[in-house]
């Protein structure tokens, strides 16, 4: 009896608790990891304002980035407006370029020609996701930059080059999420539209896209947030000048490009290094805001 009991306990342990325990363990580790990263970033990021006494308003709204001091201002200045603006402009212009293309591709894949869509387009887009960002950047520097120089003038390194590289990179995100959204539209909607005598194009414009709206918006927001976080590819083509961009052909910097360039050469604990951590914290806050927006959109979609 007792032996039997032991056996069932053992069986139960093996069948139920082993897997569950492992899953709980993994979950706990992930939560712990996330919170410790947030905690670390917050403490490091806030020390610019607490330990070094730099004003937050100056950090966000001033374009005076002079981490060494000297020149016009004797004390080091950490105004990041140029980079915030650079990141924002690049991300939104990139979405402006790739959102219409992404949605059009999604419609084509699901409504106009599902056959080509699943056989050719889907794999092609999935392939795009697998290309590392340094390769995009490299292609950008060796192909896109000379082309821009020849066609549009300037020096080639430009906001435009950054926008184009990023828009290619976020295209798969927008396309695949829009495509998923279109797939989940009830067939009744489309049939009803056809039944009322609408053409295919009218159905796409009046029924399919409005019905998939929240999914498409989610894709776009995810695209913006990916564009914001992308560092390497943009850094290689945007020129990284600490100036506000003078038009599309001008050069500028983004939050992430300054981070990648300076983090290795500044010393942990100095005001300069802490200012970089503050920029990292800013990126975290921005991505947090994007997640909140996506959540809101998702909730609206459910109703």
């Amino acid at each position, binding site marked *: 009896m007792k032996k039997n009991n032991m056996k069932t306990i053992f069986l139960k342990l*093996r*069948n139920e608790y*082993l*897997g569950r325990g*492992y899953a709980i363990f993994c979950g706990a580790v992930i939560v712990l990891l996330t919170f410790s990263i947030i905690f670390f970033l917050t403490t490091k990021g806030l020390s610019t304002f607490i330990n070094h006494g730099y004003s937050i308003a100056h950090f966000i709204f001033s374009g005076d980035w002079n*981490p*060494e001091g*000297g*020149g*016009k201002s004797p004390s080091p200045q950490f105004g990041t407006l140029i980079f915030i603006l650079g990141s924002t402009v690049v991300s939104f212009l990139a979405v402006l370029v790739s959102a219409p293309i992404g949605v059009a591709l999604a419609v084509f894949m699901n409504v106009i020609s599902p056959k080509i869509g699943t056989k050719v387009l889907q794999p092609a887009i999935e392939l795009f996701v697998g290309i590392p960002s340094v390769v995009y950047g490299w292609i950008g*520097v060796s192909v896109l*930059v*000379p082309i821009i*120089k020849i066609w549009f003038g300037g*020096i*080639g*390194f430009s906001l435009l080059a950054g926008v184009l590289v990023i828009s290619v990179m976020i295209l798969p995100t927008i396309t695949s999420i829009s495509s998923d959204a279109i797939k989940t539209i009830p067939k009744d909607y489309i049939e009803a539209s056809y039944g009322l005598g609408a053409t295919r194009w009218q159905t796409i414009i009046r029924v399919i896209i409005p019905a998939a709206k929240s999914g498409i918006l989610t894709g776009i927001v995810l695209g913006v947030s990916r564009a914001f976080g992308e560092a390497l590819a943009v*850094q*290689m083509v945007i*020129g*990284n*000048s*600490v*100036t506000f961009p003078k038009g599309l052909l001008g*050069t500028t*910097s983004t939050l992430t490009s300054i981070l*990648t*360039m*300076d983090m*290795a*050469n*500044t*010393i*942990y*604990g*100095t005001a*300069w*290094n802490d200012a970089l951590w503050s920029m990292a914290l800013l990126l975290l806050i921005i991505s947090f805001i994007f997640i909140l927006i996506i959540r809101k959109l998702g909730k609206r979609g459910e109703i």
Partner: protein
Amino acid sequence: MKKKSLNLMVAALAVAMTAGIFTGCSSKKEEVKATTAPAATEAALTGSITAAGSTALQPLAELGAKSFLDKNPGATVNVQGGGSGTGLKLVLEGSVEIGNSDIYAKDKAGIDAAALKDHKVCVIGIAAVTNPKAKVESLTKAQLIDIFTGKIKNWKEVGGADIAITIINRPASSGTRATFKEFGLDKKEEAAGLTQDSSGAVKQAVKQTDGAISYLALSYFADAANKEGLNILKLDGVEATAENISTDKYKIWAYEHMYTKGEPTEITKAFLDYMVSPEMNAGIKKLGYIPMADMKAKRD
């Protein structure tokens, strides 16, 4: 059946993870052992040390590490990049034995230079380079400063072609930039220009951009083939060669440092001695650096 395979998978995962943890720990232990265990005899050095930091010094450190291993089988020197700041930080923390740096530790904010011991291993020259289309061979120092501070905006103002000047900088935290600014520009503040992350990227950008001017360490064009597409400027008519640098006729140069925390011991000491030994001189010259023994001029 399905459950069983799932269990198996979970078990396999658990085993893999534990194994991972153990190997992770053991490799660390090995490293600690290697650095703390005293070498058996002078003749047979064993163990491993790590040198990290400056990417400008990295190729030479790698070469040194390789021939050092040939001479002392069993004594490994791992060389890593990361930048001068990283190198200084890591050696100060004690995570690496040698911190490579392009600049003096005292010049880096946030570094306790008193705790570090400086070992100068060689000298590196830095030359101003332009795109060949600028059609300028030599600049005076005043002209160089005017160009980098944005007073001169077109190459025709200094006798070149009618092309706008584009300044390409390294990041503000770069050691090469610090040296160039100190000895080339007399510490004048540069005008805003493009910034490229690494010397390799600078090289490509200068080749691609018509009116570009930037600066590169001589080790980046030690080979004649590497000079293609670049125009190396003379400064006040003096060419940036090893000879001119060794007599301080050409001023833009800096020591390459290998810092240790306190006095070096055993392998670290042997390696540092080896780096400045006559055996290394040929390799140092071949890579475009200048051996300490060849330097006639001195600088503090």
